[in-house]
Structure formats: C-alpha cells, structure tokens
C-alpha cells in the first residue's frame, strides 16, 4: 500500500505539479510620479508638426488648466485625409474663373465693368476662397483630443462659432472601443473611438481618428493602470 501511494499518479485527468507562479512586482504609486502606460514611458517627447493628427508624448502643447504632475501622453486630431473635400473644393473654385470668365463675357456682353472693378472683384473672390480654406483648416486644427495620465480632454468644434469641451478623469473610464468600417476608413486607417465613462457625459467619441488601435491601446493601458492602483 505504501509503495502504491509513493508511486506517481498517472492518467489523463492527473495534472503535472505546476511551478508556483510569482506575482508580478507591483509598482508602488507615488504622488510625484503618476502612472504612464508602458508603451509611452520610454518614448522621447516630440514636437508635433503643424499637420500632425497623431502624436505620442507631444512637446509644445499647452491646454487649459493643467494639473500638477500631469503628463501629456497623446494628442489626436481627425486624420488629415479627412481634409481632402475642402482642399479639392478650394482648388476647384480657384481654377473656376478660368473657365467661367470667358463664358460670362459671351453670355452677358452688356455687363461692362471697369478694369479696376474687375480686379477688385477677383481679389475679393480669391479672398473668400482663402477664408473658406482657412476656416476649414482652423476647425480641423482645434478639433482635437488630449490624453494625459490623469484626464481626457475632448475639444469638439462643429463650426467656427460653436465649441464643445468635455473633460473626464481616467478613473471614470470604464471601457474603450473603436470602429473602423467602410472603404475609406479601411484604406486610410482611421476610425471612431468610443470611450465609455461613469460620468454624466457617458461617452467620449473621437471621430475619424488615425491609428485607432494604438489610441485604444493607450487608453486601455490607462484603465489597466487605474485597476492595478485601486
């Protein structure tokens, strides 16, 4: 009987003794060094160029009411390809007078405007086109989202007269997901990111954001870090 008990148990339902798994070393949170996702910890700060729509650890960005110990992790704008419609419209309007001008002279021969008047009309026309392009660029530039190690700040600019700013703390984030559907979004790799929070503003949405997988990973790491510290 003793020999049987000493004999190693074998069979399809008998597991080999597993080595003890050591728990991962826990980082002690300190008030002076807030949590930063591992993917961004060792990345150097970089200055985003003027047409940048995705920049990790950006340098040279200022925003409203920064908190002490807050580190800027990511700045997101809409993918630059989304500016294609207004760029092509501006170019088309710029070359339109080359075709319309002679046509107008044929259709309306009785309209005779002085050369100075024609020049001022032309200058005004191209000023309006410039204004349209400038407004479109400004709206794209300021319509952005900032992710720090403490908060997410979403700046929505539907038009030049309207701005919608939403701020949530990382602790309030419950879930993050992204959607990338359609031919253009798949081709140019941008998508919509949805951040679910516990707050009144239940959802933060970053529409047409580039690299949605990377952004989701960064926010997901923030959620994980929050869970480990809890």
């Amino acid at each position: 009987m003793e020999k049987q008990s000493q004999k190693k148990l074998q069979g399809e339902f008998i597991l080999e003794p597993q080595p003890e798994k050591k728990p991962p070393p826990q980082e002690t949170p300190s008030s002076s060094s807030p949590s930063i996702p591992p993917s961004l910890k060792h990345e150097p700060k970089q200055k985003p160029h003027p047409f940048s729509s995705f920049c990790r650890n950006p340098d040279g960005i200022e925003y409203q009411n920064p908190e002490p110990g807050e580190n800027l992790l990511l700045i997101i704008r809409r993918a630059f390809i989304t500016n294609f419609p207004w760029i092509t419209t501006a170019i088309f309007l710029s070359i339109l007078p080359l075709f319309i001008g002679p046509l107008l002279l044929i259709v309306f021969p009785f309209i005779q405007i002085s050369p100075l008047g024609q020049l001022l009309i032309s200058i005004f026309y191209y000023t309006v086109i410039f204004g349209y392009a400038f407004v479109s660029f400004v709206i794209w530039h300021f319509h952005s989202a900032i992710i720090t190690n403490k908060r997410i700040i979403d700046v929505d600019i539907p038009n030049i007269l309207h701005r919608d700013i939403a701020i949530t703390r990382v602790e309030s984030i419950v879930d993050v997901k992204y959607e990338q559907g359609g031919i253009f979004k798949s081709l140019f790799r941008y998508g919509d990111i949805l951040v679910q929070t516990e707050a009144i503003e239940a959802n933060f949405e970053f529409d047409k954001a580039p690299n949605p997988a990377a952004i989701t990973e960064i926010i997901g790491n923030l959620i994980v870090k929050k869970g480990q510290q809890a």
Partner: protein
Amino acid sequence: MTFPDILQLIIDFFTNQTLIVKIVLSILIALYGLFAVVLAVQIRVLATVISQNNITPLLKLIAFLHVLFVFGLLVATVFLI
C-alpha cells in the same frame, strides 16, 4: 424735383453699372469683414483651450492680417472705383 426727374435719376442709377458694382461689392466685403473679425476672435478663444506652440501663433497672425486685408479691400472699393 418733378416725377420725370426722379424717374430719370432712378434710370441713371440702374444704368450706371460702376455704381451698382461699387455698392454691391462694398456690402459684400463689409459682411465678409465681419466674418473675418469673428474668425480672428474665435481663433484667439480657441487658442486658450489648446495651443500648439509652432502653429497657433501663426494662425493668430494670419487671422489678423486677413482682417486688415479685407478692410483694406473695402477702403479700396469705396474710394477707388
């Protein structure tokens, strides 16, 4: 002024294409100038929310120059045509 004089004045007004162009263009440029001012103000406000050091000051400058240019165009339209 008699009725035929008033009628002649109206006819002269509507046949003076340069005057019509001047008035219409001045109104349009003035309205656009209002838009340019609003744009410059909004850019200043948005820059307080978020600002990128290598481009936001440039946007403010362009908006300001845009306003100046439009008002210069208005002056040219009113006094030169």
